[in-house]
């Protein structure tokens, strides 16, 4: 027996970049977050080779979950090919050896900024959302200690008041992204800045969603089959963006969340925000045999 066969060979970094103790802490905090859906768990956010605010929270979760057999997809505002998404995807592959994909159906782990793919996620898939500001109460209670007490007491009167004020002043709820939502009937969370369109996708979803804020050092989760209900008044229904009737000018797909592209003449055209879904739709239109997954929205409407 020699020292050489008792120790691992030297490597420039741990598997998956993060050291074992950092991953262990993240795993523990993720389990806690799953146990108390929607409740923010603090964690010691580590340094990763990326600036805070660029998805470091999501990246750490992905690095912890990843293994060489896991197929990874990374999207940024729905697009797989933005610089940030491409960089994170390449980094994940490089430090873990995991294969990558652009197709939602093929992915095991999806790290996303500000969107949920249009195709329904399955029980064996994990969605990691990057969160810039995890505290839904920040706008009504700047003191974080008091805000934590308010979560503890389920004291969300001020959140509702904010909605009341928006309706009184503007005639409708103005909250666009990060629509505050009640998770499992107990904790109000911000679903990260996904559009209102995407929030109903989290309700009783089959997949696990983990939301992580690297700069703010908070992690929270929506386990599979958990209620996620946007805060709404009983007599003022929740409304998603009016994208149900729009058609993508490139793929011809209708009834999904769109990016608006302003034109020189003052009008706008639209393209599907979920870029890979758009690509698949174009390929299908051109006669290729493409596996198109079932989508959450059907004909621009979310089935109840």
């Amino acid at each position: 027996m020699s020292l050489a066969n008792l120790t691992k060979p030297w490597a420039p970094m741990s598997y998956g970049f993060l050291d074992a103790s950092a991953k262990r802490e993240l795993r523990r905090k993720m389990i806690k977050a799953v146990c108390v859906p929607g409740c923010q768990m603090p964690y010691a956010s580590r340094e990763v080779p990326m600036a805070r605010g660029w998805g470091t929270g999501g990246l750490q979760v992905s690095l912890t979950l990843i293994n060489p057999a896991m197929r990874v997809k990374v999207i940024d505002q729905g697009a797989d090919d933005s610089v940030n998404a491409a960089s994170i995807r390449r980094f994940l592959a490089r430090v873990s050896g995991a294969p990558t994909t652009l197709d939602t159906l093929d992915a095991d782990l999806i790290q996303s900024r500000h969107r949920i793919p249009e195709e329904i996620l399955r029980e064996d898939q994990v969605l990691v959302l990057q969160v810039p500001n995890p505290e839904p109460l920040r706008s009504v209670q700047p003191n974080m200690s008091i805000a934590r007490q308010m979560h503890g007491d389920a004291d969300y009167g001020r959140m509702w008041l904010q909605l009341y004020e928006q309706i009184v002043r503007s005639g409708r709820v103005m909250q666009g992204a990060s629509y505050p939502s009640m998770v499992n009937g107990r904790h109000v969370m911000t679903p990260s800045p996904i559009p209102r369109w995407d929030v109903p996708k989290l309700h009783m979803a089959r997949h696990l969603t983990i939301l992580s804020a690297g700069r703010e050092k908070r992690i929270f989760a929506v386990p599979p089959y958990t209620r996620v209900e946007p805060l709404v008044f009983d007599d003022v229904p929740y409304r998603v963006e009016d994208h149900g009737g729009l058609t993508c000018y490139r793929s011809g797909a209708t009834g999904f969340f769109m990016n608006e592209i302003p034109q020189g003449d003052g009008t706008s055209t639209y393209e599907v925000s979920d870029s890979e879904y758009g690509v698949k739709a174009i390929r299908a239109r051109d006669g290729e045999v493409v596996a198109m997954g079932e989508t959450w929205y059907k004909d621009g409407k979310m089935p109840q």
Partner: protein
Amino acid sequence: MTLTLDPPRIVKTAPLVQVRGVSKSYGRVVALRDVAATVYPGEVLGIVGESGSGKSTLLRMMNLEETPDTGSYTLDLPDVDGNLFALDRFARRMLCATRIGIVYQNPHLGLLMKHSSSGNVAERLLVAGERRFAVLREKAKDALAASEFPLERLDAPPIELSGGMQQRVQLAKAIALEPALLLLDEPTTGLDVSVQALVLDTLKRLQRDRRITMVIVSHDLGVIRTLADRVMVMRRGEVVEAGLADQIFQDPQHAYTQQLVHAKL
């Protein structure tokens, strides 16, 4: 010597509010020493005394904002039991939101100055679990109307309102859930005399039409004389005298009360 009074014999209803043996010190400063107070349903208790006499501290305790070193506080209401000072934070908050209303001298303490006036009132209802926008709006309107707030300014934020109007918003917020107990901390201090009279009149109306039990703290004897059925005189954290309002004003027993009453008249 004055006679000691017998316990009530005719009025059989239990007192709504019972505060017993309340003492509180901040370091070596004694804020309250063995204070007791009883308020019957529908009664208006006035607490007078100079600044620093402990009257506002007592009121804050009745609103469960502060806990004394010793003493007990009970409210005779269905499903409210035991010493309220022993309640945890959550139970306190629910009790205060649903059963106790308070109007502060300083509207900044009681109102969100940049939210709408109706929203300030609606908050109470939201805390109590109301989730229908139309109902919230209607009830907020009703409460504001009851406190004689001009409804065309329904959605103006308090910061744009005059002092008297701000007090009305506070009052509307306090009575929105028809509380069992309404606490008033110097509600008219700092207002113009004419505005003060209007606010007093509103309070008097509420007292007459809704029979709300009130505890009102003021150093202004005129306010107390107008509103209170019974008066408690406090000095240096102790109750020096308590009695019927007309008795306290016409036949004050304690030297301090005499000084107070004579200073006013």
